[in-house]
């Protein structure tokens, strides 16, 4: 109930429209409800042979119909505006709120789940608020008016004819309640089949390589059978409820024929009255079903609303008090003092008591195996997460005491497989223009040139205006990486974070990226999560991490002496990788 009242709060800015559409719906309904009475009157006039009265009644019917037309048109326009307004507001609010939530939230939620909140749940709420309430009023009022009219006409017969009403409403609302989960389960199973199909299309080479076509077909068949089975459940419901809902009102009609007919023969009811009764019961059929439907709809809307409020009620974090000072000027010195970090829900800390002091402009290589804490460490600097112990400071300021936007504008991250937006190449490179200022093509081109991306961008179908991801326009890993480097260059940050994971780039690309990185690193504090000795060689300082702790720390030569782990890494694998990466004769393949 609380959820229901909170949901109504979304209507507040549209109070007048919402009330207006209810009033209009009610008035239009009066017009509809008047029609059977008028018809009955006409029949009586005919029985009496009164042509003049008949003409008058026909005229009134036409006028009533015209009035109803005007009211219905107005009601639809007003209600439509309210419904769409509520939808736009809710969606904007949800989106803005999502953008403020902490990274831990996104780690714990599947994108699919969030999408389902923002689409399915949101639409069920807005449909109820926009239309459900109107239908509720309209149907309820129709039933009420018809009931009053019938009871006034003939109390006994009226009550008899109304007997099916509560049953129809109950059954209809029950149908709406049970059919929903059944249909959702169908959707769920279809989603499973989709995942199955996706896997088989993406993994077709594996299936063929192992000659497992028959086995995969069998799996797919059972997925399809599961859809069939569940569809049959839904079909059985539909097959039972739909005819039942059509059948019950017929009983009301039969009662009117049987008893009303006798009353006409007795002379206690006019033929016109009889006809009016008959038409009223017919008129009730639609609203009875609608009322049940809306009742079911409102239950769903409340459930959906509860799920939406779950997100909207979550506090934005890390919470940022307004009016924090901007990051002080500096060369990009980064200090970590006794930093520890544990992911929400994790038992083991990812970082323990890490202390480092990196002077501005230095390049640091972070070396260590998977799970050693390299990636976690660099995420604390732009405050994607807040350290659970100790302090992280940039140019002397604790990062939690400065405006996060000003901090993040001074930090850029380039990963091996960077995320690009499905927008033009230009827009992706100019992405850092957060202040809203237009970034000129010349600036974008300069950044692209420095990032060694110019040549391949020129070869794209629309050059810098090519939309990434459209019409199968995909870029290779090396190309994406260089666009990300250009994006970082344009942001001109004090601090650069490079995640240089293992990759099997071909020789030319490897060379180009190395050059681009050298350009990007000049004059900035750079953290490199390094996997290659050639990248490690670029660093002034190397930090060896294991299980969240700094194991060793120093220059390449110092570490060869001091750290057996580092010596092993250096000796065994790293240089080997380079073989075959040196043959810059091959023209670059543009990944179209």
């Amino acid at each position: 109930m609380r959820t229901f009242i909170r949901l109504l709060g979304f209507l507040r800015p549209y109070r007048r429209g919402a009330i207006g559409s209810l009033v209009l719906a009610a008035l239009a309904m009066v017009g509809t409800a008047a029609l059977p009475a008028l018809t009955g009157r006409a029949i009586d006039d005919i029985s009496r042979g009164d042509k003049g009265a008949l003409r008058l009644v026909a005229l009134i019917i036409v006028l009533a119909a015209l009035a109803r037309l005007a009211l219905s048109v107005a009601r639809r326009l007003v209600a439509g505006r309210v419904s769409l307004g509520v939808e736009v507001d809710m969606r904007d609010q949800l989106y803005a709120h999502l953008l403020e939530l902490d990274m831990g939230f996104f780690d714990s939620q599947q994108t699919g789940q969030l999408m389902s909140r923002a689409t399915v749940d949101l639409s069920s709420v807005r449909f109820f608020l926009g239309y459900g309430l109107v239908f509720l009023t309209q149907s309820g009022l129709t039933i009420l008016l018809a009931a009053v009219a019938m009871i006034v006409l003939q109390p006994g017969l009226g009550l008899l004819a109304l007997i099916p009403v509560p049953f129809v409403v109950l059954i209809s609302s029950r149908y709406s309640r049970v059919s929903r989960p059944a249909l959702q389960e169908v959707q769920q199973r279809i989603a499973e089949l989709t995942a199955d199909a996706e896997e088989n299309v993406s993994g077709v080479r594996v299936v063929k390589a192992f000659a497992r076509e028959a086995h995969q077909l069998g799996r797919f068949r059972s997925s399809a059978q599961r859809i069939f089975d569940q569809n049959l459940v839904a079909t059985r419901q539909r097959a039972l409820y739909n005819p039942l809902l059509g059948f019950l009102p017929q009983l009301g009609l039969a009662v009117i024929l049987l008893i009303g007919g006798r009353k006409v023969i007795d002379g206690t009811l006019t033929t016109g009255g009889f006809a009016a009764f008959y038409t009223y019961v017919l008129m009730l059929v639609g609203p009875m079903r609608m009322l049940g439907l809306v009742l079911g709809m409102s239950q769903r809307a409340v459930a959906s609303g509860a799920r939406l409020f779950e997100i909207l009620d979550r506090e934005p974090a890390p919470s940022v008090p307004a009016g924090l000072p901007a990051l002080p000027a500096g060369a990009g010195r980064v200090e970590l003092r006794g930093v520890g970090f544990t992911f929400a829900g994790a038992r083991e800390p990812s970082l323990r008591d890490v202390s480092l002091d990196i002077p501005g402009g230095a390049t640091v290589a972070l070396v260590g195996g998977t799970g050693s804490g390299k990636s976690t460490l660099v995420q604390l600097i732009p405050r994607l997460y807040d350290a659970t112990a100790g302090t992280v400071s940039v140019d002397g300021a604790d990062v939690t005491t400065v405006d996060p936007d000003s901090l993040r504008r001074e930090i850029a991250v380039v990963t091996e497989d960077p995320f690009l937006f499905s927008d033009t190449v230009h827009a992706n490179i100019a992405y850092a223009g957060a202040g809203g200022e237009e970034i000129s093509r010349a600036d974008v081109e300069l950044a692209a040139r420095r990032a060694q991306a110019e040549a391949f961008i020129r070869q794209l179908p629309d050059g810098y205006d090519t939309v990434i991801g459209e019409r199968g326009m995909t870029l290779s890993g090396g190309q994406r990486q260089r666009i990300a480097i250009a994006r970082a260059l344009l942001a001109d940050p004090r601090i650069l974070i490079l995640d240089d994971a293992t990759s099997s780039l071909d020789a030319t690309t490897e060379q180009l990226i190395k050059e681009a990185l050298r350009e990007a690193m000049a004059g900035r504090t750079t953290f490199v999560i390094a996997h290659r000795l050639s990248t490690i060689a670029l660093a002034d300082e190397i930090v060896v991490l294991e299980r969240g702790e700094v194991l060793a720390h120093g220059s390449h030569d110092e570490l060869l002496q001091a750290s057996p782990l580092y010596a092993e890494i250096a000796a065994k694998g790293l240089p080997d990788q380079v073989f075959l990466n040196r043959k810059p004769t091959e023209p670059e393949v543009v990944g179209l």
Partner: protein
Amino acid sequence: MGVRRAELRRRYRATSGRGRKLRGLLELLRPYRGRTILMVLALLAATAAALAPPPLAKLAIDQGIVPGDTGVLDLVVVGFLASALVYFLATYAQTYLVGWVGQRVLQDLRLRMFAHLQSLSVSYYSSHQAGAIISRLTNDVQALDQLVTDGVVTLFGSSLTLIGTAVILFVLDAQLALLTFLVFPVLGIASFVFRLISADAYRLTREKVASLTAYLQETLSGVRVVRLFATERRHRGRFAELNDDNRAANMVTVHLNAAYFPGVELLSALVQAGILLYGGIQAIGGDVTIGVLVAFIAALQNFFDPIQQLSQLYTTYQAGMAALDKIFELLDEEPDLEDRPGAIDLPPALDGRLQFDDVTFAYPGREDDPALSDVDLVIAPGQTVALVGSTGAGKSTFAKLVARFHDPTSGRVLVDGHDLRDVTQGSLRRQMGIVGQEAFLFSGSIADNIAFGRPDATREDVRDAARAVGADAFIEGMSDGYDTDVGERGVHLSAGQRQLVAFTRALIAEPRILVLDEATSNVDIHTETRIEEGLQRLLAGRTAIVIAHRLSTIQRAGRIIVLEGGRVAEQGTHDELIAARGAYWRLYRDWAEQAAA
């Protein structure tokens, strides 16, 4: 205006090709003839029962109430109840049968497409987007589902109701019926025009909401980038714009509906007034009974509803037909690498002798630029061959021809003397293991994925294979060991771990011929040193083709083949090639220089 006409022509054409679709649909229905016939009978009965009340009401008034004959009245009430019961039962049967037959047909269609997709060669998948292929199996079938579930019943039910009502009205009173039919063209044309316009409007709303959803999805996937560049405000602005676009598109449909539906209501009321007036005057003159008049007005509702329902069906119908077109297009795609008739199974224990007999291969559409030219060589059983060359030299193409993912443009590829085109693909691939750069895993447990290579493998076999490759350590360290769920495409595992599972999967199949295409490039150094031994075990005694970046792997190969521009540039052992001071020697020299730097 010209654009509009062309658009109309396009829409008209979209309805052609009906013959193919109709034949295809009938063929799908054939296995369920019996139920289909029952379904049609139930539909007829249900429609007849739904049409009965107005004429019965007329009978009750004219024969029972007006003459004061309660006997007739009671009889009619019994008939009334009987018709209601028939309606209930027939509608139940019809709904159930439509659902059953429809879903069965859709299931058959899915399976047929899936089986057909499996028969298509790898080149089909290279030249078509995965998303589009998946959409055939999912979205297009869903569009048909809509048509089957709602469409079929509405199409037949509404048409029958319309015809039946017209007949009833005509029988009740021909003159009044003709008067009523006057609105038919008006309503029909208005409905059709409304549908035509609103189909566009609704398509626009679907597009707008799709781009809104896509934008949201993208923001959620890229939320780190948004946070890092502090661009929240800009994204909010863009989202608000898209949100407003969506509102505007929806507002158009609100306007259309606000004009159409109240309009139909008005028309219906006008007809009713007209009938009352005209029929009433006739009744006063004694030409028409009151019963006829009441029945007429009751029947009018049966006249308006089906027209609206039919016009609503138009959009669903179009979407369904478009989907059907795409589905049949897929089914009509000729499989290009089918087993030739009379293809033989390879003997179960191959020696593993591989021969390329003057092979040239060009990818479709790039005939003037062959990926392999005049390759002529023999690989002895049990030999390990390393393929060396830069990107685009033809290494991967070579490997694909061995697995017969493609057929050579000219020349022959032979295994133990059998031309690959003369043997069944299943028997070839059962003796061949392929491990690529991206190890693709299927959702399910680690054990399932390993046993994918040999379905009858016991847990013991799986464990042995994992141990042999050196994958046992990480697997046993996982929370559920071999039963750990790897997630979609194996996302719960790291790239290196996926690769280890893929090695194990290849090993357990005991292949005679093994193809490793950059299989170790995603494995990190620590892991690689660990699996080196496992790799040796994997290669031992099998014919193996290895494409690798690392010198250690290449050096160990019994023979190195250097490819350049699709041709064999040189071949021999590591020492021989170094001594020859050719292409391989140059590569080695460059590498040594850099490694020393």
